[in-house]
């Protein structure tokens, strides 16, 4: 791929990106969230059309206008979110679109199952072709995705953040599979933002930053530090200057909390923690290890199985969202567009989202829009929300200003406990710095802050105390200086506690 350019409204996702993959190599595409890795691969796979540049396959220039063309050219892709149909069998999923046929028209289920079983045996996949996809583990589902590519005779395989959803054991199995595939002469493009795994599996590494190619290096000679520098473009990681925490009373206590998700799977398994006034407790962990369920349980959005949640001395184990809010919980949700804001509402209406039924906004069921607007005016000024007035639709604001709006609302309620989930996701550096400063300031105001983030860097720089969540359990607790490696290991279930 040479000189690939792709623009989206307001952003250049790929700017003159070039890289090449050799036969029989694992080539990693490394970059932070938003560096343009997935966009690049979607172009290669025919899902997006590039605005410029050219793609050459085996020396010949190609242009794909659909996934089908890319598949026919021998490109396979394992998407971050699996493209599998849960209610169909493994074999059906694998052959879909390129089905074996008997007697001219009928689907040859037996041939399909046999081909899949053969493949599974060759590559040691341990997947039952007759099983329904919804019944097998995430790791196995990923293998089904790989088989889909193999079945279509792909010789270039793209894996988009393949380890994000895997347990360490599953990840290690995946690496074994990738080694086998490489030996078979397959070219593998491995997209990741994790330094350690890139160094473990890749032959060569191309680093992307803000839509541009930074460098392509061989694994030999590359170090985590050198790659990190290329990735983020600076030596020093973002650090927040913050004074020592002056902690007070315990405001949030969680005891032996168990939570099941909507499908009945236990996602939080016996979490106990407490957060004191004036401290930031960070929860580190790989996505999907129970963070969302923990947050939802604390904020009354999800029923808890057992255990106790206490906020400022008030027992709130089985309380509604309303009761949790009234007890003094503030919550910056992980997805501001899906949950944090009603995008169709005005700024004023969004600011009233928690307290729309309380004076002065309302009295005995009557709403006073004028007062809502007044309050909005004050907060817009105080929190420097730009892009509109109280009656502007929240959906019309930029991401950073939307997040400021959420933060303004949560902080203005003067919560005792503030839960901040992924507070800087998708924001630019300026907005991130603002939010980080603000969180520290609120800590110094004496609030208890629980920070949940997938960005380890953010956890490290903000937290006074760090808890590591792995498969629904707290597997590590750290105060003071701690290395990224230690926590990283624990996040993947490799910590002492998990071993013991």
């Amino acid at each position: 791929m040479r000189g690939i350019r792709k623009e989206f409204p307001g952003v250049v996702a790929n700017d003159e990106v070039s890289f090449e993959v050799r036969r029989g190599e694992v080539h990693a595409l490394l970059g932070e969230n938003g560096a343009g890795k997935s966009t690049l691969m979607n172009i290669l796979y025919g899902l997006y059309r590039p605005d410029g540049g050219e793609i050459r396959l085996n020396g010949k220039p190609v242009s794909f206008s659909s996934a089908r063309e890319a598949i026919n050219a021998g490109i396979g892709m394992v998407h971050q979110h699996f493209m599998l149909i849960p209610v169909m069998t493994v074999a059906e999923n694998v052959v879909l679109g390129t089905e074996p046929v008997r007697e001219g028209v009928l689907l040859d289920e037996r041939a399909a199952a046999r081909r899949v079983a053969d493949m599974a045996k060759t590559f040691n996949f341990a997947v039952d072709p007759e099983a329904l996809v919804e019944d097998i583990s995430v790791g196995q589902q990923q293998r089904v995705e790989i088989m889909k590519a193999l079945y279509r005779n792909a010789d270039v395989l793209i894996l988009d953040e393949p380890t994000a959803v895997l347990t360490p054991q599953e990840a290690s199995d995946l690496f074994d599979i990738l080694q086998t595939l490489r030996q078979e002469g397959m070219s593998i493009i491995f997209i990741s933002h994790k330094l350690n795994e890139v160094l473990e599996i890749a032959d060569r590494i191309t680093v992307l930053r803000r839509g541009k190619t930074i460098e392509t290096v061989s694994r030999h000679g590359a170090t985590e530090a050198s790659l990190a520098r290329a990735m983020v473009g600076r030596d020093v990681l973002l650090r927040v200057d913050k004074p020592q925490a002056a902690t007070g009373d315990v405001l949030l206590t969680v005891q032996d909390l168990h939570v099941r998700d909507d499908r009945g799977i236990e996602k939080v398994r016996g979490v106990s923690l407490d957060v004191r006034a004036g401290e930031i407790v960070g929860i580190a962990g790989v996505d999907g290890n129970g963070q969302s369920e923990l947050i939802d349980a604390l904020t009354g959005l999800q029923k808890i199985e057992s255990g106790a949640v206490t906020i400022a001395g008030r027992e709130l184990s089985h309380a509604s969202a309303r009761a949790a809010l009234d007890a003094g919980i503030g919550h910056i949700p992980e997805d501001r567009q899906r949950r944090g804001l009603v995008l169709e509402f005005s700024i004023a209406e969004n600011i009233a989202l928690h307290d729309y039924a309380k004076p002065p906004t309302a009295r005995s069921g009557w709403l006073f829009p004028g007062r809502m607007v007044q309050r909005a005016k004050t907060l817009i000024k105080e929190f420097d929300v730009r892009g509109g007035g109280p009656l502007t639709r929240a959906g019309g604001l930029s991401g950073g200003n939307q997040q400021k709006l959420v933060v303004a609302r949560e902080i203005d309620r003067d919560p005792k406990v503030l839960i901040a989930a992924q507070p800087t996701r998708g924001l630019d550096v300026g907005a991130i710095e603002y939010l980080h400063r603000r969180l520290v300031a609120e800590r110094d105001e004496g609030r208890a802050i629980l920070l949940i983030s997938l960005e380890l860097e953010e956890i490290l720089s903000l937290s006074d105390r760090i808890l590591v969540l792995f498969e629904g359990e707290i597997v590590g607790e750290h105060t003071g200086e701690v290395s990224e490696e230690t926590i990283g290991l624990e996040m993947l279930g490799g910590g002492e506690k998990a071993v013991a």
Partner: protein
Amino acid sequence: MNTWTARLENPLSARLRDPATTGAFGILLGAFAAFLAIPPIEARTVTWPILFGIVAAALGIWTVTRGRRRLGWGAVAAGLLGIGLGILATRSSTGNLESAFDATLVAQTLGFSTPLVFGAIGGMFSERSGVVNIGLEGMMLMGAFWGVYGADKGGSWAVGLLVAMGVGGLLALVYAFFAIHLRADQIVGGTAVNFLAVGITGYFFIELYNNNPIHNGVSLLPNVHVPGLPVNPDNPHGFVDFLGQAVGDLSILTWAGLALVILAYVVLFKTPIGLRIRACGEHPRAADTVGINVYVIRYGCVILSGMLAALGGIYLSEGPQGNGTFIFNMTNGRGFIALAAMIFGNWRPAGAAAAALLFGFSSALALKLQVYSQSAGTLFQILPYVLTLIAVAGVIGRTVAPAADGKPYAKQ
């Protein structure tokens, strides 16, 4: 943990949703239906045993489509047996029931079921590909009118069939364009289709036929005479006569409908195209990434559903009951019963067909029972809707629509 403790730990609601419970309950209900008719209760009307019997059979169909085949068919059998026993028991006391329960009831059940089967299977194709089709009623109505028109002007029922399918498909194409291409809300679009069909058929009915309902000499859909069976025995007795009355003289579309059920099952579950259709209804993005053209599949399925619904419609006007007569808004909710049958049958051909037969049976009974109690007849008309409402309520097991049903798909 052994199974017994596992059962104990299951909450009651979960056990109620278990198809096994449903099936067992169905069998019990069937027994109860029979029990009602015999001493000591000895229900004076046959309504209650039949009502309970039908509900039992419905539970059975339900259970079958949720995977517990043997138990489910058991419940169906128990329900039918209950009805039979109930009839037998009350028959001795009430003389005029004899006219209600004979072989023609079977024929009428099949007759009433025919349009429902076509509509339900049509709707199933559409929804399996991911497009909700509540416009079935309208597409059916179009078939009813334009079918007569085609048969009249073309001089043959075969022309009528083709015209009906063509017009039904055309209306479906319009709907498909709005639902798929313009990504309009599918419920709104389907509602519009229903309005349009009432207006268009009503308008042209007056324009072309001056509101005159009967057209003598229109070529009608032929009936199929099964060789060896007496069509209209003078003094029916014995099994052969019974069979003759029941299935000896059915419309060609009734047989076609039964064949369609089998064909639909094969296409949907045994061919590559069926696999692709289901993929589009479950996860269109996944289908797209393996190179399946979601739009083409969905267009095809929606148009097919329009054509099939129109066939159901032409049966109403050109079939044995219709006699080449079109009446303003003559479908009168049958498209919605077809939709209900599809939902009740859990988006499966056999289930939808079984539900259509059951609903057809209750319509046939409604007609028969009018002879001696009109209000009882009406009661049976409500039954399909009540059963479907209970079904979607999910108190007795879950109705599982295709995951992407009703969601427009936008290519990236």
